[in-house]
């Protein structure tokens, strides 16, 4: 099994008067690509185009060279996809096992016994094997997120697309999610949309979206480096005009912006690099 090749080229999408995506280009094969951006930046729209459930107004999407505009190729491409949308879920009256089994049927996992085994395997993988007979409505929010992940893992997809998978998960669950994604790094192309920088930190590539355009694409280290020379720590209140500042536990202020002369510059974090990219401040 090889990781799928995802190629999104010059994609644009508009809803009424709002441009959701503007000339977005993205390539991924293997590893984890995090799409980072604020709410409404076009992350979910990009993921929908990448998973073939939405057709872009312009540009092309290819999954292993397959064109989703052609019916046969779209169906073939979908055999490689595991997708967990942000707002999706299951009817609260459905039993956990039935919900995943239904998606397994749609994913063409044939043979009753094989399908049952596959369903129980993915439920076990996300830690829900002891909940198979319960109603979805009886699960906690975090468990429902894990259920979405379980259906995405069905059939061993080579392109795994997850929209805000960490939302609502407690620290243990987030660790488990990170483990699941990390173990698929080599065999799967993982595309994760998030607005949390700590989720993006474990990715191989980070793509920053802002107002539907790609503001940055590179490694987490390169993103953090965008704030190099812009972060400093000082005693007392920060000077006026800083981008942002917050008081640390030791009472000093950590500031982001144009540093005044003579301050001690420090190593920037991914979050600070992200803020610099979103602000499009020129690097010094």
């Amino acid at each position, binding site marked *: 099994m090889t990781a799928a090749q995802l190629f999104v080229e010059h994609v644009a999408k508009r809803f009424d008067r709002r441009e959701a995506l503007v000339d977005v280009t993205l390539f991924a094969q293997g590893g984890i690509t995090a799409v980072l951006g604020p709410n409404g930046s076009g992350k979910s729209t990009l993921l929908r185009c990448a998973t073939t*459930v939405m057709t872009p107004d312009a540009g092309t999407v290819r999954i292993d060279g397959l064109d989703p505009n052609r019916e046969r190729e779209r169906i073939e491409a979908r055999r490689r996809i595991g997708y967990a949308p942000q707002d999706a879920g*299951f*009817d609260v009256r459905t039993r956990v*096992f*039935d919900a995943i*089994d*239904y998606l397994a049927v749609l994913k063409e996992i044939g043979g009753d*016994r094989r399908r049952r085994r596959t369903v*129980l*395997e993915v439920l076990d993988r996300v830690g829900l094997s002891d909940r198979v007979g319960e109603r979805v409505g009886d699960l906690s929010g975090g468990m429902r997120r894990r259920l979405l992940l379980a259906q995405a893992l069905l059939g061993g997809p080579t392109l795994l697309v997850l929209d805000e998978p960490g939302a609502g998960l407690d620290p243990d669950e987030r660790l488990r999610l990170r483990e699941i994604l990390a173990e698929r790094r080599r065999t799967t192309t993982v595309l994760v949309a998030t607005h949390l920088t700590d989720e993006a930190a474990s990715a191989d590539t980070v793509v920053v979206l802002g107002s539907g355009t790609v503001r940055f694409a590179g490694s987490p280290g390169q993103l953090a480096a965008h704030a190099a020379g812009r972060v400093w720590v000082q005693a007392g209140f920060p000077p006026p005009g800083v981008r942002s500042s917050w008081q640390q536990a030791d009472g000093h202020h950590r500031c982001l912006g144009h540093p005044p002369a003579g301050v001690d510059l420090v190593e920037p974090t991914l979050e600070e690099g992200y803020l610099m990219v979103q602000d499009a401040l020129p690097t010094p």
Partner: protein
Amino acid sequence: MNTPIDPARLDANWRAITAELDAPRPARTERALRAIGVPSSVVRMVAATPALRRSWYLSIVAVVLLGLGAADPAERGSLFALLVMAPLLPVLGVAMAYGTSADPSHEMQLATPTHGLRLVLVRAVTVLVVSVGTVLAMMLISPAARPMAAAWLLPAVAVTAASLALMTNRPPRQATTIAALAWFVTVLVARVVADDPLAAFRVGGQVAAALVAVLSVSVTVVRRGSFERIEFAR
């Protein structure tokens, strides 16, 4: 005699056994459908949507009530109501079970290799079969309704097909509402023009229904790609 043990095979067998033990028993509806020979994958497609089951129950209750009214030979209005409402029941069932507003897992379904049209057709046929069976049964046990027992079948197919054709360009509930309104208008216009309450169910109406059905099926097949996109599923 020592028999060599293959750990991989042992593990696979163990997993197969635990899967059989751990998987919950299918619901009554599913067991009933399997018992009459419906493939388990189709059963799952149909029974996994509680909204679809709800629409079944509602349509059955509606038909029984209308049928009881139509059983009285003096109540010509009840027979008319039964004939007008019966073709809408399958359509309502489809609309109540398809799209993101009816089914929260719809977006996940779209990303699977199963064609959206196949899914909607499986559900439409299921609702059609249940509704047709119930309505026919009610009409056949009612002496007043018996002569018209089959008169609503073609209109039902036409309205369902028209609804599916409209769904290629409009959200499911909107498409269904348009199809239902068009049906009501057709019945009323035919009634006024021909001065016959059941004009829409006579030969002319049946021919028109057949044409609408053929045209709608053609549009649905040509534009089937719409069932694969989230834009039309809200």
